[in-house]
């Protein structure tokens, strides 16, 4: 399976645009949410967690739930999440790459067509993703796109850990690819 590159932007263009967005959001965040760092994603998921935590588990006094339900940046990042969905939809529709699917085609080729099996991995993987992002104080956006740009020690360690664990996990899931060099 080959990745279709024909309709994609060059990585340089995408990278520069993201950096301009980071700088622009810094100033707006500072003005409306009294926060001195650019946009992130994790707090948006935290806002959803806080909603369920307050409603069903009665965690009103939990410090994590309190933080995500009271701070304005979590509320804003929840709408960043919704914006991301609309942005992904618009970009894929405009470039003709919109492609509904249940599970990734590459996964299907190597791990079988079972949707239940993939969904099991999705549930486990996403719980780890959420837990890890909360503990590390940010995801790829907050800790690499922003944190590495700030050269924060915390983010350098977090981002390096993302890669270290991701590389090992991907090797376990796709062991044959890692060793062969017949990729072409």
């Amino acid at each position, binding site marked *: 399976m080959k*990745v279709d590159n024909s309709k994609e932007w060059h990585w*340089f263009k*995408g*990278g*520069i*645009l993201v*950096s301009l967005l*980071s*700088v622009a959001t810094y100033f707006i965040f500072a003005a*409306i949410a009294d926060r*001195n760092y*650019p*946009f992130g994603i994790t707090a948006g*998921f935290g806002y*959803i967690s806080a909603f*369920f935590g307050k409603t069903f588990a009665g965690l009103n006094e*939990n410090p994590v739930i309190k933080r995500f339900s009271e701070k304005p940046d979590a*509320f*804003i990042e929840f*709408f*960043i*999440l919704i*914006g*991301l*969905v609309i*942005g*992904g*939809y618009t*970009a*894929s529709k405009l470039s003709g*790459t*919109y*492609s509904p*699917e249940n599970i*990734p085609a590459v996964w299907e080729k190597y791990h079988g067509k079972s949707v239940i099996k993939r*969904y099991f*991995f*999705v549930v486990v993987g996403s*719980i780890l*993703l*959420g*837990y890890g*992002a*909360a*503990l*590390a104080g940010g*995801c*790829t956006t907050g*800790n690499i796109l922003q944190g590495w*740009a*700030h*050269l924060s*020690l*915390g983010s*350098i360690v*977090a981002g390096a*850990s*993302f890669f270290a664990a*991701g*590389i090992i996990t991907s090797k376990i899931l796709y062991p044959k690819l890692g060793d062969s060099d017949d990729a072409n």
Partner: protein
Amino acid sequence: MMLINILFGLVVGFIFGFILTKTGVTKYPRVMGMLLLKDFKILKFMLTAVISSMILFYLLGDFGLLKVVPKNLEWGKLVGGLIFGTGMGILGYCPGTMAARIGEGKKEAIIALFGTALGILIYALTIKPVKATFLSTEINGNIFLQLGLNKWLVIIPAAILFSAIIYFVNKKVSDNKKIF
């Protein structure tokens, strides 16, 4: 105020999602390809953004227009990072690209969205012992302070290092290679 927050969030998310999808970094084979060290488009994209924002942030900082506040280092960064990385390896995307993937019609990403929120909820339930174990000792995250160097003596070498990585992987591996 509320309306401004909502609008700002939607606009930033829209632009970010548009860039992510349009650049192709939301694709499962690209993320897995990067982790398998076979496809470096995402790495080049990220490092380009990092170099450019780093220089912009610290230049604007020198002009007194903004103040960069680095994230401190505690054990949670390492442990949380490893947990996050394992999740990313299993999923084949991260929180931001997950949301953009929902827009691209990938149904499993909706399940992943609730799974991620559940992960944070579990974090909230375990916060007491976690805080005592992984978040109690904190090291100041300001790398210039820690190294005792002028900031540009760190920023410029970092920019050169990141550029060298981009140059090296760009020369070695094509973005159009067949991996899977």
